[in-house]
């Protein structure tokens, strides 16, 4: 059973990320769906797609709940059943996971998985308040810690335990902005220097503005099918060969350590086990860099290096576009943007482009195995998937 594909991606679409004035979430989603259909002319949405699983974190942004059927309608899927998934920043990572389970169960031949968030029409203060809902209210938010603050607590602990530096964290931003400058769909398509990143204003020490991902608008969409049916829809399927998901306490303070995410380690263990692969088999990865320290911790949790060596990995250029293990070729959450509900699917979209040679100026040559790592909130949810070129 190990390494046998669980499901296959027949097509993928992504809206432009960034500030998308004048558009509603459902319209952004339709933009992503359109690209997926254009890439896959053999799919008939109404006839083939049997269910929609869609990630969407906040109904506060547009005063809109019940987003499952709304998005199914706009995608042209009625009367297919629709499920909206909320798992903070891992909403569409979990939606993807449910899509994989639906296909792997044998009950569905084709499902759509999506994710969307429309955030930038609200003030930063409002968006920050909506995002904070992903952290514990009575024992974290109530005592004045912000979302960047929770990752800053991890950063301080990591610096203290392993000697990780503010420069190493800033280098994650420099790398991801460089990659974002090569991605026409990225929110930020501009490089930043180490000096600029280090001199940016402090948000929650030791994290500065350039250590934090932006508030963005965007949507993504995948069409999943059974591996044996994939060739009916596309000549270039991407198989999902490993998948894992795990949970942890919502409160960071309750955890045994602050320098790793237990849920991410467990999700990775499951994904490697189902794939029959190990970290050294992974050639490219999209990881959840909501804050720069989160990318450094992700390297360690995913087994790309030992605990404490994450900072060195970025410093030595190993995870750069031309390094031996490129991470966040899309620009990551940092530069591509982080419309929270869309991020999990957007990571899978990038891996699909890379594995099928469609990543344009940021294409990494000769990659066959990719990984995505999507974290919800401050680590209470984590989803890890492993992909292989079909």
């Amino acid at each position, binding site marked *: 059973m190990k390494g046998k594909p669980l499901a296959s991606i027949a097509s993928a679409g992504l809206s432009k990320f960034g500030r998308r004035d004048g558009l509603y979430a459902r319209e952004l989603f339709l933009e992503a769906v359109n690209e997926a259909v254009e890439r896959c002319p053999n799919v008939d949405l109404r006839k083939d797609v049997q269910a929609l699983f869609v990630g969407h974190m906040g109904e506060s942004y547009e005063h809109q709940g019940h987003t499952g059927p709304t998005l199914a309608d706009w995608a042209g899927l009625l009367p297919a059943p629709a499920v909206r998934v909320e798992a903070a920043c891992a909403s569409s990572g979990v939606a993807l996971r449910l899509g994989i389970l639906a296909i792997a169960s044998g009950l569905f031949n084709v499902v759509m998985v999506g994710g969307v968030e429309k955030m930038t029409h609200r003030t930063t203060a409002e968006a920050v308040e909506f995002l904070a809902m992903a952290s514990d209210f009575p*024992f974290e938010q109530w*005592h004045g810690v912000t979302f960047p*603050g929770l990752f800053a607590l991890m950063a*301080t602990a990591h610096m203290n335990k392993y000697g990780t530096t503010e420069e190493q964290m800033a280098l994650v931003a420099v790398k991801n902005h460089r990659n974002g400058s090569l991605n026409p769909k990225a929110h930020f398509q501009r490089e930043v220097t180490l000096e600029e990143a280090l001199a940016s204003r402090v948000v929650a020490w030791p994290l500065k503005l350039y250590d934090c991902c932006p508030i963005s608008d965007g949507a993504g969409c995948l069409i999943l099918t059974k591996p044996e049916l994939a060739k009916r829809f596309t000549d270039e399927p991407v198989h999902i060969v490993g998948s894992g998901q795990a949970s942890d306490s919502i409160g960071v303070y309750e955890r045994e350590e602050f320098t790793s995410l237990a849920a991410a380690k467990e999700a990775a263990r499951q994904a490697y086990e189902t794939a029959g692969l190990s970290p050294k088999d992974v050639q490219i990865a999209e990881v959840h860099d909501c804050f720069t320290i989160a990318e450094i911790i992700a390297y360690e949790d995913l087994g790309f290096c030992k605990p404490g060596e994450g900072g060195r990995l970025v410093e030595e250029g190993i995870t750069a576009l031309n390094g031996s293990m490129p991470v966040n070729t899309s620009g990551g959450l940092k530069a591509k943007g982080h419309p929270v509900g869309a991020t999990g699917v957007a990571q899978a979209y990038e891996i699909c482009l890379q594995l099928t040679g469609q990543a344009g100026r940021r294409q990494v040559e000769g990659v066959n195995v990719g990984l995505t790592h999507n974290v919800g909130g401050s680590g209470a949810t984590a989803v890890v998937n492993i992909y292989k070129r079909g």
Partner: protein
Amino acid sequence: MEAVEKLAFTIEQFYAFVKGRRIMAAKCTKCEAIMLPPRFVCKACRSTNLKWVELEGRGKLLTYTIINVAPSRFQRLAPYVVGIVQLKDGPNLLGMIRGVKPEEVRIGMDLIVDFEPPEGGAWPAWPRYYFKPA
């Protein structure tokens, strides 16, 4: 003490104790686990034989951050320090660290809990605890 034993092991009750300037936790009488925040079923062994215990409120700083960009509720305090403190009795609590300059805060420093009165107004009517150098 008999009266205390009858109080529910809830978050609301925890904050009612905070109002009385006490940090109270639920202790499992079967496996000795101390739960902060309290729960009415033991996290470790699922026993419902619990008792309230008062914690000393002293501990060491495990990690911290200096919040510069604050939510509107806390804007007047920024920049302020928030940290995770490991209490001597075992469990961790997150709270503001006051009475020390942000640049002088150090991991491992000894802290002691203190209390401020509830703000009143909208839900929730909870008071806050914070930490200061011991």
